[in-house]
């Protein structure tokens, strides 16, 4: 399975922004000792300024904001916008998928709805995992047989047939262990008739055109949404109550879950850390499955495992973690080969905080001023095993 090529196609950069260099080509290099290269650069640069900015011609992504008892829920429903957010920096999570929104392609593949197109439907992560698990269970069945025969051999000598079987099993196992390529079984591509589909599938397939209707949405964490809104301004947040567009300040309050936030409001502290790592180019995803706040990927989960796990600790003396909590977390993080980074966030006093968040402050400068009042402190937490560091 040519996994790498598939990934390259899916990754287009750390931010959902179209660069000028992608559309108009990069500016020429400048050589300090060659004045001609300066002139050429200046000429190209001036020409570039006359052209429209590519990102200015692209509509903002529409994000739906629904107010629930558990806080605001942000979703993107358009299939192409979901893909755009995922391919440019891995934002959000498909609500029916493991991470990237693959429900549409998965279901199309399962129901063989793309039989008319010449290209086979792309394999999703979930499909690949399924194939891997099937292969693994075939391997385990062979291994069990090998162990049965070997145990029997310790009790009584094996018969000729059994000896031969053991040899065969051993060679099959060797082949399994040596190959690291996944063999994908070809599935029959006969289209399923509408009448043969399960009831729940019929609900999602158009009877006339036999096309799947997308019902999956991409859900954004509040920190992701606020980064896209405040940091990049590539999204329009629409309230589901009255279909009105929310201002940055309204989005901020929706994320905080309150109109009267305090310096240690969880969302703000989390956002400071999220923004910090995003601005350094890391792909930041939720660390909930490892019991921490964030995990950091070099480019994204489709390329390599996350290298660092970040635990956010507000440094106001009231949110300190006990050693047992940290050690427990460290064991989990250690077993998945990541580094545990404790991120202590220092925060402003209530007076400074309230002064900045004053209603008179303009939205444009408010949040940058506010975020500059915080400071992140990073401490790596690692087990020390004296046995292993002697030399």
């Amino acid at each position, binding site marked *: 399975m040519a996994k790498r090529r598939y990934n390259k196609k899916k990754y287009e950069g750390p931010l959902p922004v179209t*660069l000028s260099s992608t559309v108009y080509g990069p500016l020429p290099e400048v050589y300090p000792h060659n004045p001609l290269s300066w002139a050429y650069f200046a000429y190209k640069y001036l020409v570039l300024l006359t052209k429209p*900015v590519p990102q200015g011609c692209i509509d903002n992504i529409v994000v739906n904001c629904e107010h629930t008892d558990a806080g605001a829920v942000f979703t993107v429903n358009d299939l192409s916008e979901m893909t755009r957010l995922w391919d440019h920096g891995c934002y959000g999570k498909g609500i029916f998928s493991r991470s990237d929104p693959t429900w549409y392609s998965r279901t199309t593949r399962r129901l063989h709805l793309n039989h008319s197109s010449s290209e086979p439907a792309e394999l999703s992560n979930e499909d690949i995992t399924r194939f891997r698990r099937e292969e693994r269970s075939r391997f385990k069945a062979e291994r069990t047989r090998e162990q049965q025969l070997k145990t029997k051999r310790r009790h009584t000598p094996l018969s000729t047939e059994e000896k031969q079987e053991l040899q065969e099993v051993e060679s099959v196992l060797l082949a399994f262990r040596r190959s690291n390529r996944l063999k994908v079984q070809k599935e029959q591509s006969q289209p399923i008739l509408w009448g043969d589909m399960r009831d729940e599938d019929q609900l999602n397939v158009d009877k006339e055109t036999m096309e799947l209707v997308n019902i999956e949405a991409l859900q954004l964490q509040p920190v992701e949404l606020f980064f896209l809104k405040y940091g990049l*301004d590539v999204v329009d947040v629409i309230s589901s109550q009255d279909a009105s567009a929310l201002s940055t300040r309204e989005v901020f309050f929706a994320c905080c879950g309150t109109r009267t936030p305090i310096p240690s409001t969880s969302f703000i502290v989390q956002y400071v850390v999220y923004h*910090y790592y995003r601005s350094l180019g890391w792909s930041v995803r939720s660390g909930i499955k490892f019991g921490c706040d964030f995990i950091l990927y070099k480019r994204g989960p489709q390329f390599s495992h996350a290298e660092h796990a970040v635990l956010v600790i507000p440094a106001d003396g009231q949110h300190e973690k006990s050693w047992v909590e940290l050690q427990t977390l460290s064991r989990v993080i250690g077993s998945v080969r990541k580094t545990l980074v404790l991120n202590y966030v220092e925060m402003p006093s209530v007076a400074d905080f309230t002064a900045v968040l004053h209603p008179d402050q303009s939205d444009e400068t408010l949040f940058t001023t506010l975020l500059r009042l915080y400071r992140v402190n990073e401490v790596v937490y690692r087990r020390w095993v004296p046995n292993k560091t002697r030399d």
Partner: protein
Amino acid sequence: MDIEDDDFTFNNILLDQADEVLDYRFLTQSLPKTGEKDFEPDGSAFQSNKIEDSKELMYSMLSQELKAHERQVVEGIFLPWEGQTLIVTIRGNYFRDIGRNIPFKNKSAVLLNKIETLYLVERGTLIVYLGNDKFRSYLDGLINSFSFRDLDPLNLQYVYGLLTSFEIEKYQVFAYLKRLGYLVQDYRHFVVQILPDEHHWLSPWRISWFGSSNRDLLGVNIKSIHYQTYSQILKKLSIIPSYAPYESLKENFNDSEFQIHYNVWKPRPAFSKKLPPTPDFQICITKAFPQLHDIRHLFNQLNHTALNIDFEDLEMRTKDHKLKHGTGRTIVLAIINNGVSFVNLSETQFSLTHKNKITGYVH
């Protein structure tokens, strides 16, 4: 000293034997090694015999008595009025790192603290006697000679009883590291000189190249600026201040009670007790996990060497390694909680902007 020569040779043979049988792993190699479940009893004589043999070897080894080499056993006198043990005749290789040398009757002697005393007694290399008034008069020069026969030997239980409960915990850490071969000394503070360099934060003119220079404006403006690379946008987004390693040296954290207890060196052939090199590890023994200002206080107590790296020149792989092991100082915590666990805490900075210059340390 009551160990006879015969005893000594017998002992030697046992020790040699022990060395030979120590590696009883070779037996397991003939058992299938595919996984733990293979050691589940399968009822075959082949397996049960092998396991039985291996067990017997283990028990015979455990039943050996721990004895020290006669020539290396030393005698000491515990001085209750000083809380220390005096060793007049030094033998063996134990005093490379522990004890303090003092002049004694025109010769040199060694004073051990209680933890060091207990370690050597438990190891079987020190026989310790309780110093009495008569011995005190000898020390004061009132009597010219003394004999060990006039003193009462102390047993292990008594030496344990000399330690407070915190000292017992300190002892656990000390003995564990000593048994692994580390060189351990009580923490000594060396004065650190720091020449704080100006922080090379991303210079404002570089950020404003494509837009406004107002500090409070993010000014990314992706809809009106022609960006050539993603890093141009990311630089503008870099607004969150971060703590740079060594920055804590500019502050005092006197309200913190955390302190370093031990300086630890990896095993090495040459070691000067008086003028030790920079420790490889510095250990704080604690029951509670420190808060941020405690961690900084501990960092400030460290004796560290110069560190002056320009992170921009580093290769990606080196940068990765730096991030994982910290870009600044490291402290080891020995946390006492139903046993001892060791944790490394290293200061790091993912934005890699610090360029503080630290000069060497002074005794």
